[in-house]
């Protein structure tokens, strides 16, 4: 506590040894937290004030495997994949700071692959809902129209975050492989020197997207 006060009242930097990029990512994520909170709170509000019954998520999101209906199975796998990707991401950061180029590259690629799989499965889920169950943003046969509206909006917004993450993971992975970070090569757009920090900053974003998913999972599928 005293340390915090001392840092804040000292000169030049409020957070000692936090690089600019990292500070910026943290503050961005704080802002993004407010976006997702607004989405989720709005979802809860429309769900509570909807005039028609809310469809039962464990039925809607069930998947028929080997002739049996298993509730939430797809979503469980998706969640598992995304959480695993957080693990590989954390390892990538560790190897990054050890300047182990090969391992960092491989782990970043695995993380990106997990992310892409997640988005792929989400696309599958959307297709199933739209084609088989007849769920549309403006209505569905099972009950309140807001079910489809909020579902597509929120998972879509989250999926966009994951997709953007995958793209940047690949960019960072290529930078690592080419050795841009070891040689401090200037970035294409910004002209700033490459540093291993960016792997960690990437990681912050990725863990955040993961964490948000846990909340979406809880209030959408389990409620």
């Amino acid at each position, binding site marked *: 506590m005293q340390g915090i006060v001392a840092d804040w009242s000292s000169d030049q930097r409020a957070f000692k040894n936090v690089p*600019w990029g990292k*500070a*910026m990512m943290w*503050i961005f994520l704080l*802002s993004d937290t*407010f976006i997702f909170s*607004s989405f989720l709170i709005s979802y809860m*509000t429309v769900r509570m*004030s909807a005039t028609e019954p809310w469809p039962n998520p464990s039925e809607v999101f069930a998947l028929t495997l080997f002739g049996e209906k298993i509730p939430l199975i797809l979503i469980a796998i998706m969640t598992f994949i995304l959480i695993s990707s957080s693990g590989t991401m954390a390892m990538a950061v560790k190897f990054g700071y050890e300047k182990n180029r090969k391992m960092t590259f491989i782990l970043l690629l695995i993380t990106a692959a997990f992310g892409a799989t997640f988005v792929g499965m989400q696309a599958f889920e959307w297709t199933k809902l739209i084609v088989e169950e007849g769920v549309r943003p403006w209505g569905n046969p099972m009950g309140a129209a807001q079910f489809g509206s909020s579902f597509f*909006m929120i998972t879509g917004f989250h999926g966009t975050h994951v997709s953007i993450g995958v793209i940047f993971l690949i960019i960072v992975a290529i930078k690592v492989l080419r050795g841009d970070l070891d040689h401090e090569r200037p970035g294409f757009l910004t002209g700033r020197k490459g540093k291993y920090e960016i792997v960690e900053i990437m990681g912050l974003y990725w863990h955040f997207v993961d964490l948000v998913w846990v909340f979406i999972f809880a209030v959408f599928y389990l409620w």
Partner: protein
Amino acid sequence: MDYVAHDASDFARPAEVEEMELYHPKTFIGKYIWSQDAKVIAVQYAITAIGIGLVALVLSWLMRLQLAFPNSFSFIDPSNYLQFVTMHGMIMVIYLLTALFLGGFGNYLIPLMVGARDMVFPYVNMVSYWVYLTAVLLLVASFFVPGGPTGAGWTLYPPQAILQGTPGATWGIILMLVSLAFFIIGFTMGGLNYVVTVLQARTRGMTMMRLPLTVWGIFTATVLALLAFPALFVSAIMMMLDVTLGTSFFMPAIVSMGQQLDYTGGSPVLFQHLFWFFGHPEVYIVALPAFGIVSDLISVHARKNIFGYRMMVWAIVAIGGLSFIVWAHHMYVSGMNPYFGFFFATTTLIIAVPTALKVYNWVLTLWRGNIHLTVPMLFAIGFIFTFINGGLTGLFLGNVTVDVPLSDTMFVVAHFHMVMAIAPILVVFGAIYHWYPKITGRMLNDTLGKFHFWVTFVGSYAIYYPMHYLGFAGVPRRYYAIGGTNFIPESAQALNASITIAALIVGVVQVVFLYNLVWSYFKGKPSGSNPWSATTLEWQTADTPPKHGNFGETLPVVYRWAYDYSVPGAKEDFIPQNVPPRDVVLSSNKT
């Protein structure tokens, strides 16, 4: 006697922050168009914001003309009037004031005042401006699409924002929502820069508690904006889906023009909550930078340290925090649970405490100061007047029982123009007169400036003071014409006409200001580097206007707070922040 200073020491810790890598453009385009220099970006922001602000000003004339002389203008029909109201309000609040205070003054002043060479991520900062410009162009485009801009009011309340009877329901509303989304994305890019620059890139010796209040104001406002705009962003997305895909987030089952629409079961009050969760902090997003700037203007031009610096900082932070829990005072008549009214009225009155404290401190700073009635000082004092005025009517409206009969009347319009339109605009003017010499190296013309001040200040009172009475009499807001409404006395029409004449005069006088800006750029008196004998770092730069990189070869080191004016024992009546105590020239007549 040795000189006594508030917070100064000869010691400065060694540098912790690395020298910033700057991008060095070689071409004209790189320097002035796709510029990564915060000072150029600031000017780009300012010019764009003032340009679109002029559109809003012209719209206000059209509205005033219609209110004063109904039935005389064939080109203003009721739909137009609503469109003018909407675009005027939205432009003034978001595209002018927010952009000008944060994008304009923030970009110019933050790096200079904290002693940084630039914002921490100049490239992102540059993109921020271009996204903002896109947002402005989208907004302007909505004037030219079929159906024209939206007429839903700047609050964009559904269901009517979406229904076909509202002007601009086909294209206008869509462009408005897209433009807002762009604005928020652009702002976020800039805002992250401002916050990180203040937190992590200050020069040696510059502690948070030595920052000038201008920086505190802009910094806190930026944090507020980063946390408040998300709610607007989300509501814009949801409304967009309601408009384009036919979802029913905000739309209940509804009959419009005799037809049952496909909407069902949505919640219009949800939109209001989201909107005002953004909307109330937004008031402080334009007010806090104004608070900060005014504190500095008063201190410099009264040659006195600001009274209660620490209190001022904590008041800014407290107001910022409280502003997130008062939003529903805009919704007393919305049909929300009436018990909320009690909670939100209480928090609203609590927020008046730190606000009043700031006002006392400004007045106490002036008290027995060596007041120079320069143009910036006049505007700063004008701000105190209008702000107190608008603040007092705010106390009325914050109470549920008083608000209910007054809501949606001209009283509300008078209140918020006093407190968040005229007051911050006066600060904008004061700030421009104050910092123009640093930006261009020339002074603005003093006589024109004083003329501009007096007409604007007195004129604003002539516009808004009588408007309170119109509100008491029951004249509703957002009405094209009141016609022969029985309960409104006929004299209201005469009052309306006089308000309009004042508004037109005030409007025309702004041309004098613009003329002054252009004329002084070429012909103004050269200012030297520190015309106001101010202490803060932006006045201590090697060149005026400062070059790319701000401070020449070496960065300044800070040894004291920003308010060492008239320090007893010192020879000069100000000691710049970068003068160490050992170098202070003492007055010769030691007593």
